[in-house]
C-alpha cells in the first residue's frame, strides 16, 4: 500500500513511519508548514521539520514539506481568533485535524495516488463485524488522542492508518530508541502550536481589539472589571481578579455586552448541552442512545443520552464552554462529535 505519513517531527509519527516501512508499505513522509508567524512551540517550527526530515532520511523514506500556511491561517487561526473574540472557547487542534490534516492533506494524498494517510495519533481504527470502520481509543489510556480525531467521518476513516494506536507511549519510545531515531526522547508538544511564549491573550490582542467590560455576579451585581472577554472561559476558576471569599467560576461570557458572569459551582451545573456541527464516525447516532461524552482532551467521560442535537446528562455537569468539542463514545468507540453552543 502507498502510504503518506504526516510527520510532525515528534516521536509518535516517527515510529508510525518506521512501523509502516517495516510492514513493507511504500511510505512517503510529509511535514506540514502551517504557521508563518513567530512561534517557539509546537508542530511547525523549522527544527521540527528538520527532525522529521532527518528521521525520514534515517528510515530511507522520501520526505516532503507542504506549505499549508495560508489554509491554516484561514481555516484554523482566523476562526480561533474570531471565536475567542465572540466569547467562545475554540479547539484549534481539532479544527486543524478536520480541515487541514483530514481536509487539505487528505485530499491531496488521494489526488497524488496514495492509498492512505497515516499519522502518529494514539487512537485505533478497527473494523466491525459488519465491515464498518470504527474509531477507538488508543491502547495507552494516558495518551489516548481519540478525542481530537472524533470529528472524522466514515469517508476519512476509510483511508486512514493509525499505526501507534495499539502501543503505549513507553513502547513507542522504546521502539524509537531501538531504531536509533533522534526523536526517541523528544519532549511532547502540549501547547497550541501557533501561540508564542507571550501567551494566548497577547496573541489575540495583536489581532483583535479587546473591549473592557464588567464582571458581574449571577444576580447582576457588578463585582469587578476586565480588559476583554478573550481572557475568560466558561468553567474557569483561576485568574479571576475579584475578591469574593467563596469559590467562584466563570458561568457565562457575553461578548456583545462584554460581560463576564461569575457564580458558585452550583451556578455552573447544567442538565444538558446543545451541540452544533454534529458529525459521526459511521452511521448517525440514533436519538435516545446512551453515550459517554468527553468534553476535553483528557477529561473523564460522563454518561448521558443523545437526542439528535443535544446531550442530556445523567447527572448535571459543569457547563461546557461554548466552542468546545463534545465527543460521544460507546465504551472505547468514538461515535461522533459536536461543538457546544
Amino acid at each position, binding site marked *: 500500500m502507498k502510504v503518506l505519513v504526516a510527520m510532525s517531527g515528534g516521536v509518535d509519527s516517527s515510529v508510525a513511519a518506521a512501523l509502516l516501512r517495516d510492514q513493507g508499505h511504500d511510505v512517503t513522509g510529509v*511535514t506540514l*508548514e502551517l504557521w508563518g508567524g513567530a512561534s517557539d512551540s509546537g508542530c511547525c517550527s523549522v527544527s521540527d*521539520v*528538520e527532525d522529521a526530515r532527518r528521521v525520514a532520511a534515517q528510515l530511507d523514506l522520501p520526505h516532503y514539506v507542504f506549505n499549508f500556511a495560508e489554509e491554516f491561517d484561514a481555516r484554523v487561526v482566523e476562526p480561533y481568533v474570531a471565536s475567542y473574540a465572540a466569547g467562545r472557547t475554540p479547539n484549534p487542534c481539532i479544527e486543524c485535524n478536520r480541515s487541514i490534516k483530514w481536509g487539505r492533506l487528505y485530499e491531496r494524498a*488521494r489526488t*497524488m*495516488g496514495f492509498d492512505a494517510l497515516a499519522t502518529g495519533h494514539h487512537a485505533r481504527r478497527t473494523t466491525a463485524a459488519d465491515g464498518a470502520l470504527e474509531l477507538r481509543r488508543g491502547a495507552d489510556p494516558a495518551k489516548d488522542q481519540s478525542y481530537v480525531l472524533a470529528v472524522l467521518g466514515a*469517508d476519512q476513516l476509510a483511508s486512514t492508518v493509525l499505526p501507534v494506536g495499539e502501543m503505549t507511549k513507553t513502547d513507542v519510545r522504546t521502539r524509537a530508541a531501538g531504531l536509533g531515531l533522534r526523536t526517541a526522547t523528544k519532549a511532547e508538544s502540549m501547547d497550541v502550536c501557533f501561540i508564542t511564549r507571550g501567551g494566548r491573550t497577547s496573541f489575540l490582542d495583536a489581532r483583535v481589539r479587546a473591549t473592557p467590560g464588567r464582571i458581574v455576579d449571577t444576580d447582576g451585581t457588578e463585582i469587578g472589571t476586565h480588559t476583554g472577554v478573550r481572557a475568560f472561559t466558561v468553567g474557569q476558576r483561576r485568574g479571576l481578579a475579584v475578591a469574593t471569599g467563596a469559590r467562584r467560576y466563570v458561568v457565562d461570557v457575553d461578548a456583545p455586552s462584554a460581560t463576564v458572569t461569575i457564580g458558585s459551582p452550583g451556578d455552573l451545573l447544567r442538565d444538558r448541552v446543545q451541540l452544533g456541527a454534529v458529525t459521526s464516525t459511521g452511521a448517525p447516532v440514533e436519538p435516545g442512545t446512551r453515550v459517554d461524552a468527553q468534553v476535553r482532551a483528557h477529561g473523564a467521560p460522563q454518561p448521558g443520552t443523545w437526542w439528535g442535537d443535544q446531550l442530556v446528562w445523567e447527572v448535571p455537569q459543569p457547563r461546557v464552554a461554548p466552542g468546545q468539542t463534545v465527543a460521544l463514545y460507546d465504551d472505547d468507540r468514538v461515535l461522533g462529535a459536536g461543538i457546544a453552543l
Partner: protein
Amino acid sequence: MSDALTYLDHAASTPMRPEAIAAMLPFLADHPGNPSGAHAAARVAKTALEEARETVAEVLGARPEEIVFTGSGTEADNLAVKGGARAARRTDGLDGVVTTAFEHKGVLAAAHRLEREGFRVEEAAITPAGRVDVDDLAARLDDRTALVSVMGVNNELGTVQPLGAVATAVRERAPRARLHTDAVQAVPWVDVATLAAGFDLIAISGHKFGGPKGVGALVVRRGIGLDAEIEGGGQERGVRAGTVNVAGAVALATALRLTHDRRADETARIALLRDRLQAGLLAAVPDAFVNGDTAHRTAGHLHLGFPGVESETLLVLLDQEGLCAAAGSSCSSGATEISHVLASMGMDRGRALASVRLSLGYASTDADVDRALALIPGVVARLRAPARV
C-alpha cells in the same frame, strides 16, 4: 550526480564542472597556506588567489583589484546593497534606494534592512512579461538616490533584464547613485561584461555555473566606496574580512572561464533542448501556459503552468519518478512559498500555484528532455483525474 536522476533544476544549483573540481583539489589536499601569510605555503595560496582574481576580472570586464571574493551570491548582494547605500549616505548624504519587486531575496532583504535604517526604499514595477518596467523605475529616481539594484536575469523566469536602459536612466536622473546588479543567474547565459556595462557593482555566485557552493564574487568599480559588512583582518581591500576561500575562488574562476569560453556553443545546444521540451509539453498538454517574455529569455529556463494542477503536488510526483524541478523559491524548511516573482508580474494566484520551473544547464542532455517528455504529461493527467475514493 546519480545517473538515475533527471536534473532540471540548474537555476537552483549546477553540478560542478570536472575541471573546477580538479582545479580546487590541490588547495584542499596539498596547500595549507593562508594567502595573507609570508612564507612559501602562503605564497602558493596567494598566487592562486590572485590568478583566480585576474580570471574573474577578465571575464567580467573589470580590473583584478575590482574583484572581491565573498561566501555566496547573497553575501555579495548584501555587501553591494547595504554597503553601497550606507557609504553613499555617509559620504554624500544620499538616502534613496531603488530596486525592483522581483529581485532575489538577497537584494530585497538587504533593501528592507536599509528601509528600517531610514532609507527611502522603492521597488520598481514588473511588466506582465516579467521584465522590469524601466519607465516606472526611472520615475522613482532622483538626485538623492544612493543605490539602484536591478537583477540581470530573473532566477525564476529566466527573463533577461534591460540593464542598458536602466543604466542610461540612472546616469541621467540619479547621477550620484551606485548601480548594482545581481548577475547570479546571468553568468551561464549572457556575457555579463556586456550586459552590465556601466554598472558599478556586479554580484555572481560560483554554484550557478559549475563552480562550488559557498563562494561568490562582487565587482566593485574603482572609486566606488562600500561600507564593510564583515570587519576583521582587512582582507579583500578591507571590504570583506576573513580568510578567503582559496580553493573555492580557484574553482569559481575555472568554472567562470570555461562557461565564458563555451557559452556560445553551450547556449545554442541547450536552447534546442529547452525548445524541444517546451514544444513537447505544450503539444501534450495543450492548455499549459509559458510564463515570462520568451523573446528575452535565457536558453535554459522554461517556466510553465498546468491549469488545475498544484505545483507542490506535481513536484513531489516528479521527484518520486526521479525528476528534479522546482517552483517558486525555497524557504528554510523546504516548503514552497508563493512566488513573489509571479505576484510582481500580476499573475493570478491560481496560475502562480500551477506553475513550475524546469531549468536546463550545461549538463543537460537529450535523454533528460526525453525523460521529461515521457513523464510530465502523464503525471499532469493523473493529477487532473478525479481523486480515487
